[in-house]
């Protein structure tokens, strides 16, 4: 039976792998398989050496399984699934729509500001300032949530 300290080490390791892979059913399946393998290997080793330090044994098991980066690399070497390609296409479309909507809102807001202040606020400068704020906020929130930005869409097109 796996105790909570060992379980934490295993779950931390699996979380590192999950972070490197797309959020999908396939990843869940892969992580479940790796968890079963870790438990089997751990139980096997403990069965052979019951007096061994549990933490040392689990570290040995994870060492044999490999670094999360190595597993993610092998996963990426396979052809991308149709679902993954479709998801990327949809996400790219959403990013472009959001970009168009943001530019439209900025232009309208700058026009209203210029009208209300009777030209005291320069239209071009207001557009520029609002654009900087929107882009900065977008990149910051996308980075925090791990979402796609316009730069990723451009990179994706280059890869394709």
């Amino acid at each position, binding site marked *: 039976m796996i105790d909570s300290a060992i379980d934490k080490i295993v779950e931390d390791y699996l979380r590192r792998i999950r972070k490197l892979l797309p959020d999908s059913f396939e990843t869940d399946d892969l992580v479940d398989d790796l968890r079963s*393998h870790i438990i089997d290997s751990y139980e096997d080793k403990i069965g052979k050496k019951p007096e061994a330090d549990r933490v040392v044994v689990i570290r040995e098991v994870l060492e*044999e399984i490999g670094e999360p980066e190595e*597993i993610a690399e092998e996963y990426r070497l396979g052809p991308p699934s149709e679902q993954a390609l479709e998801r990327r296409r949809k996400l790219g479309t959403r990013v472009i729509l959001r970009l168009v909507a943001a530019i439209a809102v900025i232009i309208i807001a700058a026009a209203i500001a210029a009208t209300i202040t009777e030209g005291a606020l320069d239209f071009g400068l207001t557009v520029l300032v609002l654009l900087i704020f929107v882009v900065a906020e977008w990149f910051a929130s996308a980075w925090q949530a791990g979402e796609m930005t316009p730069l990723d869409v451009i990179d994706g097109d280059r890869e394709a």
Partner: protein
Amino acid sequence: MKKKLSFEDGWKVEIRRGILQYAVLAIVRHHTQGIHGYGIARELEDKTDGLLVVKEGTLYPILHRLKKERLLDVSTEPSEAGPRRKVYVLTSEGDRVLRALTVILGDIFEKLEVLRE
């Protein structure tokens, strides 16, 4: 900093991947009731002295790929350690592909032997 692989180590990595898929199909074929991932890793280790699998975790993306290609199928069996666990079985298409690959590999080794003479 990542150490650069020697030419022969890099070559081994390249050739290993294709051979590993063949070896996995061959192992699964011997287990008509199915075999779990850990069992495949153990057999690979025991029968090839660890030549094919450097890190056991890299076996699973390969198993998933073979499953996606419908060469392997999955069922579950009870496990002493916890919940039911997944076992892999060879499909009829997997059996056909394994036979075809065996012929291809035989041809490759035969031709290589000629080159070595």
